């Protein structure tokens, strides 16, 4: 048998063979056809014909083997199997086939499976499954024809005719005799080089074999249109098939471009390679995959796109020579287009229905495959889509075919149509007319009157003052008569310039009720800006607080100034019955940042505001209680209106929290002093600060977040802090406070952002793409808003109003506000906010038009060009962690490991210390015999198993499992599926447990990502959280099944890291027993730690001491001293374990590298550096092996994708690294201090750039936009040079520098550097002050950081302060 000639595999066969090795239990490579015959059949002859078919066609006798690591194929002289005959009822065969087709083929023994189902005397189904490594679609048509040719040939002549087909192995030996010189393999690799992962419908392809095939008939009508079109000269091709191919490919490219929202489209196309006569007589696998890459401009018409694809298709086929493709060229094909021209040829005497069946599985790399074929039941042209089941949820699968056909129909109906403008789905707009503006609620008028009559109830709380509704009523009456006396008419604008106070609340209400249009003037916004607003809004009067009047802001103003103070609450006036303003009258004008440089006033009418307040009062009201909300955010921010208006509209109260002193507004930190608050509205940035500084009042029932993207991670923290109703409210000022609101659900919302949810009932939204077409679910679109909540427009800015409030061709008659915000509906159907994509940014909840800063800066003299860049700190990573400059010459420990200390031989302190207690460590380790004794010591108990072994599928744990089985132990293997185990590792696991004959269970938890995020924050890695999950879930199983031991396969180094700290060995009295006791105690504490594992999983059993008696934990490597080389050899030869290649690393877990990345970023060294140094020290691996594994490359793009997927946000990086930078060119070098001073006059603090930098020129990208990256990289390089800035000259300066360095994460800041310039902000100021106060035992005020913004000036102030304190004490 062994003398059969062996043949090499072709490249495509090799790929198939590899896939078979990867998924030996899978049916992914089964090519299954059924032939249903409704006629009589000579069964014996059919059976003999099939035997003859095998004799004549060697493909049936091919088998595969492996020799010296190379696969080969050989032709067996005898048939490898026969034809099964199964009798069954006519309604049974489909189920039988459905099962049979999923059975894997053992290609070492046979490459096919064949059966005839006998359903009746004249009813049969011939079933043939051939392995893809020897079969393609065309080949299956040959084989079918060959079979019936033999049958009828014999019936006619009594002998089997000789088939005119060429044996596969003969074609193989000649394969490559083509014009080899012209093979251009590099062409194909280059074609696919620029690979980016594609998101189909916004989702990334996920690894699963399971796929569903959906079939669509092209239909007569379309076929006629297609063929007619192909007769036109523009569309004609060499052949009709080539024309159909090109049209369908064009539509597929358009489809992929649409559903990936990418101009770059890449797909794989199998080429049949059967052009020549000979190839058309050769059964076997001939197809070869080639990548097709194209870039499509979105404005192209179908006709233009067709011309492009036709020309690129020609290039494709010119280069697609047999043997020139490779796995490398095809590695990134996530979409496949398979055009099969061949069809089955049937004998005229038989009534045959053929069908090519989908096995139910596909290559996991393929997200979508599209086939054009006539090989289905109908025999007519059909389109089949194979859809990855993890990528497409069941209810979403049918949209693929639907969308493809929409595009195809659009093409056939009108070739001039732009493919990007075809509507893929019907509009989401409510049918019929637009929702009518409902009757405007009377909430601001009559409803409040009702409460105003409830005299004794408290309406406002401010410090130790309280005002009842009666007093509020009096204040409104008083103010209203003051304004009337001043001659104001309804519709006049009234500026409100005040810090937060009860009087301000009364002023807002007065304006609303009397019909004056209020214009908030937040004193923190800078004098010039306020003056601009006052003038621009043409205010008739300004209600101004005493403090602001004193500040002199309005000293020279032409506007009439009226005093606003809480004294109005002492008035004895009483409201009459005012006539309330009309809904379409303006209520307020709120100024927001404008890109032209000038703030623009958004005019919101009474009706829109009433709708909001009415809706919010119902939505946010906690049960039957009335709302009590704090007024603690800027009056210039429309989210503040919720807190001012809603509580009073429910008869509740407003708690006014004013601003203290200069510097940042930290009112959020005072919330804790007010127990009556039950609802808080704030930005995520505020929430962050609140949570990090002491936490949330237990009385708070709801929080409404608004102003910027809310991450679920933050919502989870808030939920855990006891707030169980968390709303995420989206709404630009132009759509009145909030208009799309989602509620956080801890069960549903785990990763990424909290949904912004559903629209308010009096408005709606559309998600439109660039072509103004509604995007389908999953895709990113810009939010366009409509409804009764829209603002009137911008005050006196008809141009801007026309730009932003638009009408779109597809939705005539509908007034839409174009938000500039992007969002998508995720696979759970939730609407997720994705942020802005223009020159507008959000900083700490504030919307900033970079253009406004730019124009402010332009007012400086001597400037040519200006560019403003928001540096979110991505490129600052290197500054954070210190790089290792050396590694221990013995164990490889990096020099940046904390406290690492090397002697003159380059040996670390740990290795040196180890020499002193090595002997004791040796005593701790035991032998495999000891292990067997231990693990069998509890035998005879009821359990079916001696131990539970933790199996990750990696080398260490596989070795453990194999050894345990070899020791004769009864083992249950346990694997945690953390969602990121690679497919190959899973295949390994499947293979191993089968081979070793052990029972195996997977454990999993829906909370895995929460645990990962928590672990990343706590330990800067993913492993700690994962390990703990493994311990927890495996202990649950061990308890359930009464298994006395859990055996872990942690390497020696790893358990040194986790529990065998060296200190254990330092004390001579510590015997092995006492070490075990200490470790057990430590383990009990470990499971009681308050972390995500404890909050998400059931850990109650760890509270019982008996658990630790029932289940003991045994570290295998305490009992085995195997080297890495020995282990790998054992695994290779005895188990057949192979290192997974699909993780790109030495691990079997995909997310592992994300942990390493974060750890390296935060700490400078890999989390494996320490445990591996112990592995080396203990002889488990050598130094080089350890360093190789530690230094494996990390795919940062992939890591970031995964971190995003699990919802990890690096708050520190976000908080302290983000900087607003201004770059300019010009002759003069500006004095930065002066620029800042001037900018602060014009701009609010949050808009003042952290740094102003002169550059030679402003670099531009190829698209003519400012090259942010280039500017930033130049800035950071320069920053390094500035490290030589003036350094501390005394201890106090040095202390301050140390704290700044830690908080701002800037290496050695110069003592003259400005706090803001270095990226400082309010939270950083709190940290700096707190740290100093702790170190010095002082109570320095927070504002100092801003009053003395350099190390030098701060140190001086501090010294003076200390001296004064000393003198006071002495006197």
């Amino acid at each position, binding site marked *: 048998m062994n003398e059969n000639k062996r043949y090499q595999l072709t490249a495509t066969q090799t790929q198939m063979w590899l896939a078979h090795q990867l998924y030996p239990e899978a049916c992914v490579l089964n090519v299954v056809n059924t032939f249903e015959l409704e006629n009589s059949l000579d069964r014996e002859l059919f059976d003999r014909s099939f035997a003859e078919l095998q004799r004549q066609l060697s493909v049936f006798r091919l088998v595969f083997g492996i020799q010296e690591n190379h696969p080969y194929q050989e032709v067996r002289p005898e048939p490898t199997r026969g034809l099964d005959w199964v009798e069954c009822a006519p309604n049974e065969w489909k189920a039988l086939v459905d099962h049979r087709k999923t059975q894997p083929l053992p290609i070492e023994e046979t490459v096919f499976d064949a059966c005839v189902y006998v359903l009746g005397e004249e009813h049969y189904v011939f079933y043939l499954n051939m392995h893809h490594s020897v079969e393609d679609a065309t080949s299956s048509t040959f084989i079918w024809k060959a079979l019936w040719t033999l049958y009828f040939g014999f019936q006619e002549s009594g002998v089997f005719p000789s088939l005119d087909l060429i044996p596969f192995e003969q074609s193989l030996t*000649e394969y490559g*005799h*083509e*014009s080899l010189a*012209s093979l251009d393999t590099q062409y194909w690799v280059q074609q696919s080089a620029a690979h980016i992962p594609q998101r189909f419908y916004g989702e990334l392809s996920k690894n699963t074999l399971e796929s569903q095939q959906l079939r669509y008939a092209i239909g007569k009508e379309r076929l006629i249109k297609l063929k007619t079109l192909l007769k036109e000269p523009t569309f*004609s*091709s*060499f*052949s009709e*098939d*080539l024309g159909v191919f090109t049209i369908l490919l064009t539509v597929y490219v358009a489809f992929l471009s649409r559903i990936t929202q990418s101009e770059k489209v890449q797909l794989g196309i199998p*080429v*049949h390679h*059967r*052009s*020549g*006569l*000979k*190839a058309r*007589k050769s059964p076997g696998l001939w197809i070869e995959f080639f990548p097709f890459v194209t870039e499509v401009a979105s404005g192209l018409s179908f006709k233009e796109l067709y*011309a492009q694809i*036709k*020309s690129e298709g*020609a290039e494709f*086929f*010119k*280069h*697609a*020579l047999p043997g020139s493709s490779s796995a490398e060229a095809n590695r990134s094909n996530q979409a496949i287009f398979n055009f099969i*021209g061949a069809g089955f040829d049937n004998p005229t005497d038989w009534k045959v229905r053929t069908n090519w069946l989908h096995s139910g599985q596909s290559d996991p790399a393929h997200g979508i495959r599209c086939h054009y074929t006539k090989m289905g039941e109908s025999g007519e042209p059909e389109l089949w889509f194979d859809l990855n089941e993890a990528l497409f949820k069941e209810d979403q699968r049918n949209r693929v075919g639907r969308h493809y056909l929409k595009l195809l129909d659009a093409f056939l109906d009108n070739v001039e149509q732009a493919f990007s403008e075809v509507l893929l789905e019907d509009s989401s707009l409510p049918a019929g007319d637009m929702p009518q503006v409902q009757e405007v609620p009377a909430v601001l008028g009559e409803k409040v009157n009702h409460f105003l009559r409830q005299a004794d109830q408290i309406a406002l709380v401010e410090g130790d003052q309280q005002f009842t509704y009666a007093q509020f009523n009096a204040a409104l009456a008083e103010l209203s008569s003051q304004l009337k006396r001043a001659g104001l008419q309804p519709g006049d604008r009234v500026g409100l310039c005040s810090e937060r106070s009860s009087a301000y609340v009364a002023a807002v209400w007065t304006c609303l009720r009397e019909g004056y249009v209020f214009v908030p003037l937040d004193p923190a916004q800078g004098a010039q800006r306020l003056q601009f607003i006052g003038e621009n809004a043409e205010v008739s009067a300004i209600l101004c607080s005493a403090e602001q009047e004193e500040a002199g802001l309005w000293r020279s103003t032409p506007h009439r100034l009226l005093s606003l103070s809480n004294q109005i609450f002492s008035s004895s006036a009483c409201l009459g019955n005012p006539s309330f303003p009309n809904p379409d009258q303006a209520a307020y004008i709120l100024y927001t940042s404008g890109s032209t440089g000038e703030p623009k006033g958004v005019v919101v009418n009474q009706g829109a505001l009433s709708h909001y307040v009415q809706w919010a009062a119902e939505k946010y009201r906690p049960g039957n209680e009335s709302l009590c909300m704090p007024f603690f955010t800027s009056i210039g921010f429309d989210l503040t209106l919720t807190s001012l208006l809603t509580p009073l509209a429910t008869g509740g109260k407003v708690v006014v929290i004013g601003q203290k002193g200069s510097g940042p507004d930290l009112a959020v930190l005072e919330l804790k002093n007010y127990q009556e608050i039950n609802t808080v509205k704030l930005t995520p940035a505020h929430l962050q600060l609140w949570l990090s500084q002491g936490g949330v009042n237990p009385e708070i029932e709801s929080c409404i977040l608004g102003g910027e993207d809310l991450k679920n991670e933050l919502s989870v923290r808030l939920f855990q802090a006891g707030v169980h109703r968390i709303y995420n409210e989206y709404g630009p000022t132009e759509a009145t406070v909030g208009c799309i609101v989602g509620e956080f659900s801890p069960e549903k919302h785990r990763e990424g952002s909290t949904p912004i949810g559903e629209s308010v009932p009096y408005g709606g939204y559309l998600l439109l793409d660039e072509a103004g077409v509604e995007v389908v679910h999953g895709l990113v679109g810009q939010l366009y808003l409509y409804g009764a909540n829209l603002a009137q427009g911008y005050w006196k800015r008809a141009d801007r109003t026309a730009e932003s409030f638009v009408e779109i061709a597809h939705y005539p008659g509908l007034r839409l506000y174009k938000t500039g915000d992007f969002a998508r509906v995720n696979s759970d159907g939730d609407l997720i906010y994705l942020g802005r994509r223009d020159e507008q940014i959000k900083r700490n909840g504030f919307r900033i038009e970079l253009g406004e800063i730019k124009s402010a800066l332009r007012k400086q003299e001597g400037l040519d060009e200006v560019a403003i860049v928001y540096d979110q700190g991505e490129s600052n990573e290197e500054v954070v962690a210190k790089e290792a400059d050396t590694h221990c010459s013995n164990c490889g420990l990096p020099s940046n490991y904390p406290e690492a200390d090397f002697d003159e031989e380059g040996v670390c302190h740990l290795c040196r210390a180890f020499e002193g207690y090595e002997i004791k460590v040796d005593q701790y380790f035991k032998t495999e015999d000891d292990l067997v004794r231990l693990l069998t010591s509890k035998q005879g108990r009821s359990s079916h198993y001696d131990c539970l072994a933790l199996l990750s599928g990696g080398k260490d744990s596989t070795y453990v499992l194999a050894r345990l089985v070899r020791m004769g132990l009864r083992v249950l293997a346990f694997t945690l599926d953390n969602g990121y185990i690679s497919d190959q590792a899973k295949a390994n696991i499947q293979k191993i447990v089968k081979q070793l004959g052990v029972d195996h269970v997977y454990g999993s938890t829906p909370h895995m990502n929460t645990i990962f995020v928590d672990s990343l924050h706590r330990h800067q890695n993913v492993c700690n959280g994962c390990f703990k999950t493994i311990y927890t879930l495996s202990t649950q199983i061990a308890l359930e099944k009464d298994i006395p031991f859990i055996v872990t396969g942690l390497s020696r180094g790893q358990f040194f890291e986790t529990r065998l700290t060296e200190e254990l060995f330092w004390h001579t009295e510590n015997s092995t027993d006492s070490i075990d006791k200490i470790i057990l105690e430590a383990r009990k504490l470990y499971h009681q730690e308050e972390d995500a594992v404890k909050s998400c999983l059931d850990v109650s059993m760890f509270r019982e001491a008996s658990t630790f008696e029932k289940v003991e934990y045994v570290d295998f490597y305490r009992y085995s001293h195997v080297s890495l080389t020995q282990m790998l050899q054992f695994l290779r030869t005895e188990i057949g374990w192979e290192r997974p290649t699909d993780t790109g690393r030495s691990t079997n877990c995909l997310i592992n590298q994300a942990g390493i990345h974060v750890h390296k970023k935060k700490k400078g060294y890999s989390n494996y550096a320490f445990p591996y140094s112990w592995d080396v020290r203990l002889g488990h691996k050598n130094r080089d092996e350890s360093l190789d594994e530690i230094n494996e490359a990390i795919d940062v793009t992939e890591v970031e994708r995964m971190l995003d997927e699990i919802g990890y946000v690096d708050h520190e990086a976000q908080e302290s690294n983000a900087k607003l930078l201004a770059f300019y060119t010009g002759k003069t070098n500006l004095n930065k201090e002066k620029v800042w001073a001037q900018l602060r006059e014009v701009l609010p603090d949050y808009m003042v750039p952290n740094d102003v930098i002169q550059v030679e020129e402003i670099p531009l990208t190829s698209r003519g936009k400012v090259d942010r990256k280039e500017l930033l990289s130049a800035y950071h390089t320069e920053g390094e040079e500035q490290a030589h800035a003036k350094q501390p000259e005394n201890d106090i300066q040095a202390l301050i520098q140390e704290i700044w360095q830690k908080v701002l994460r800037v290496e050695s800041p110069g003592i003259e550097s400005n706090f803001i310039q270095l990226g400082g902000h309010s939270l950083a100021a709190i940290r700096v002050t707190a740290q100093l106060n702790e170190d010095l035992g002082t109570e320095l005020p927070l504002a100092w950081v801003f009053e003395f913004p350099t190390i030098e000036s701060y140190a001086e102030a501090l010294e003076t302060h200390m001296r004064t304190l000393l003198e006071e004490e002495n006197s």
Partner: protein
Amino acid sequence: MIEELSRYITEDLINDPDFGTLETDEDLLGSGLLDSLGMMRLVGFIENNYGIKVPTEDLTMENFMSVETIEKYVNSKK
């Protein structure tokens, strides 16, 4: 050129020992000797060998019907 083209078509594309000789006026596609993909490969061969570029609009039956017409076309492009 005729000889070269015939050899390439016979040996590399048709690649069947049973096939006799190729007539220079034989309809390559129409007779079923080649399919459209084979034709595209032939175009690739021509581009490589005769240093011309065949634009998409020239991919017509008139130009690529037979060895004869191809020769005429290639000469016209040189």
